[in-house]
């Protein structure tokens, strides 16, 4: 007993040293320097590089949690995200792609977090808004546009930038259109209806090649335009970096995504602390009491839907342009659940938590599973009895499913929970194995 207490004390003191005072500056600086040096001197894709890359991302978390001066923290993060990772990206394109993907999902997860975490509306079809944005740019920037009028040609690629805003708007409109009819529904009904909506969008994408070919059906849309790079001359000429187009585009999308993520974080955290955020929270807590305070239920929920969906719509445009190719299976239910898993893993309602969740799930998807698959293949070769057909990259459902179940049972509030949700969900443990309904039932009929 006593030993654990003193070791805890030691651990706390150790953590304190790393997060406060001069030791913290030294620790964070050294950590950043070592990781960066390791990455840049050894950029080959390998297990060790994976580890260093993850450690570098973890550093961001440490910086967030530390209590050193704000300018130092901001500066360090800016160097890491703005210089180290992009530079490393020119040496090894794989990792910057991982970072870009992670960024896309961070924005999506933050959007879903507004709906699920803030307003408490479980949306299982969130990817539909992402699809709408992606198809929007996909159709209008390619020859698919001829479906509407044979005389029309694709929009000029430079319009990519305003189209991000249009995607935002379109996402919001779609969110409102879906929300209008269904937001009167109770929580679990809403979940199923949104799931149905997600499926409907996918089925439409799959079938709207007839009678007029709008989405090109299951073939998907190819050769989606990327915006012209306006800074090519600057990079190649002034800076003298000899990067090919592919590398330039990677850098470009990395920074676009980073920018959108930053804007998203600012917007989401301001909303959270405003009268709107409080209204969402009140609705999540008790709809009847909220409406009795004069909060218009449907309008407030619609706003959550619209805000959440708008991020997805904007990211859809970026995603389509980055991938060059989209097809219906990209936007299936699994993707929605993927994003939901990010929100839940990180902690519903908690902005840093959701960012962490999104990064972790993306890493799991893009790094951990393939890496495990490689390890398993090696084991199979050396004669360990693992079923031939078992390839972890093929069993994402299994892993996400397990993740969801285990999180719900053992840590329903997520890794970095929002204080509120923590309270709400810690009651799970308390009421476990006893009958339900202690709080929610009343007898009597004051009819």
């Amino acid at each position, binding site marked *: 007993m006593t030993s654990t207490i003193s070791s805890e004390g030691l651990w706390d003191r150790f953590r304190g040293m790393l997060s406060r005072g001069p030791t913290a500056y030294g620790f964070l600086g050294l950590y950043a320097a070592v990781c960066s040096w390791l990455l840049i001197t050894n950029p080959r894709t390998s297990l060790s590089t994976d580890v260093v890359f993850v450690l570098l991302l973890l550093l961001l978390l440490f910086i967030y949690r530390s209590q050193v001066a704000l300018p130092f923290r901001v500066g360090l993060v800016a160097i890491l995200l703005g210089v180290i990772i992009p530079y490393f990206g020119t040496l090894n394109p794989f990792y910057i792609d991982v970072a870009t993907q992670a960024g896309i999902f961070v924005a999506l997860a933050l959007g879903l977090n507004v709906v699920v975490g803030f307003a408490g509306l479980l949306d299982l079809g969130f990817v539909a808004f992402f699809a709408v944005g992606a198809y929007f740019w996909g159709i209008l920037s390619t020859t698919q546009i001829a479906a509407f009028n044979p005389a029309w040609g694709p929009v000029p690629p430079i319009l990519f930038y305003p189209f991000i805003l249009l995607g935002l708007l379109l996402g919001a409109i779609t969110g409102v259109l879906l929300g209008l009819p269904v937001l009167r529904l109770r929580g679990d009904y809403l979940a199923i209806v949104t799931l149905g909506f997600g499926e409907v969008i996918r089925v439409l994408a799959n079938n709207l090649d007839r009678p007029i070919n709008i989405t090109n059906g299951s073939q998907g849309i190819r050769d989606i335009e990327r915006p012209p790079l306006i800074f090519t001359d600057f990079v190649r000429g002034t800076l003298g970096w000899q990067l090919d187009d592919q590398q330039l585009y990677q850098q470009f999308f990395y920074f676009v995504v980073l920018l959108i993520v930053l804007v998203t974080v600012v917007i989401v955290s301001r909303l959270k602390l405003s009268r709107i955020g409080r209204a969402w929270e009140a609705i999540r807590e008790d709809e009847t009491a909220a409406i009795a305070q004069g909060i218009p239920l449907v309008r407030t929920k619609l706003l959550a839907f619209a805000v959440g969906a708008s991020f997805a719509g904007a990211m859809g445009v970026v995603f389509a342009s980055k991938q060059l190719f989209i097809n219906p299976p990209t936007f299936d239910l699994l993707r929605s659940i993927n994003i939901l898993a990010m929100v839940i893993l990180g902690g519903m309602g908690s902005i840093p938590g959701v960012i962490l969740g999104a990064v972790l799930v993306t890493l799991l998807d893009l790094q951990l599973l393939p890496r495990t698959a490689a390890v398993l293949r090696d084991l199979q070769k050396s004669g360990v009895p693992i079923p031939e057909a078992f390839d972890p990259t093929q069993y994402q459902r299994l892993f996400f499913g397990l993740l969801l179940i285990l999180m719900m049972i053992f840590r329903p509030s997520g890794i970095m929970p929002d204080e509120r949700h923590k309270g709400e969900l810690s009651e799970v443990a308390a009421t476990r194995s006893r009958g339900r309904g202690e709080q929610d039932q009343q007898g009597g*009929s004051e009819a």
Partner: protein
Amino acid sequence: MALLELQNVHTYYGKIHALKGISVTVEKGEIVTLIGSNGAGKSTTLRTISGLLAPRQGEVSFKGRRIDKTPPHEIVKLGIAQSPEGRRIFPRLTVLENLEMGAYLHSTHSATYREDLERVFTLFPRLRERVAQKGGTLSGGEQQMLAIGRALMTRPELLLLDEPSMGLAPVLVEQIFEIVQMINAQGVTVLLVEQNALQALMIAHRGYVLQTGQIVLTDSAQVLRANEMVQKAYLGLE
């Protein structure tokens, strides 16, 4: 040996320490009342006895048998019935079906079932008038009668009554307390939790006063009625 005995019982709701070492005894044939303000732990005590909550520490025994780890449906079989707080009628079952649920452990074909039913209808003639009505459509007073009747259908030796007068019109409160006395006269031991301390102490033999999860006073009902602190805090007498 006491019929029911609680020794140093500690019960928690999650992290909240609701009962902080409560010891209560109830002898056969008594009416014992627990009084105290909201949140003092009165209902928690009853729920701990009936098994809806498990004590983290301490012992509950009934007729000499430990029951603190027994699930509620087993405790009912031993002869403890509870009329829960808020009455908790099955709203979509009829009055008769609600009573049948009370007799779940006994066969509805047996003669004793008919006797039990007759006893309930004699105590509560109103229920006989409403046998076919859905529980949810009864008035508050009728629901309370049904809740007590349903508990009696389990043929209890000990009846736990949780706030039977809550939210009832004054006229009904009197009736309910009279009936509790009648039930007791028929040989059923009663442990009564009441907000309406005055009425409860009028019919009880003994009482316990709870404050924030602890028993601060226990004595015969008569003595408690005369106690200055009780008068001031719970009886509204100045």
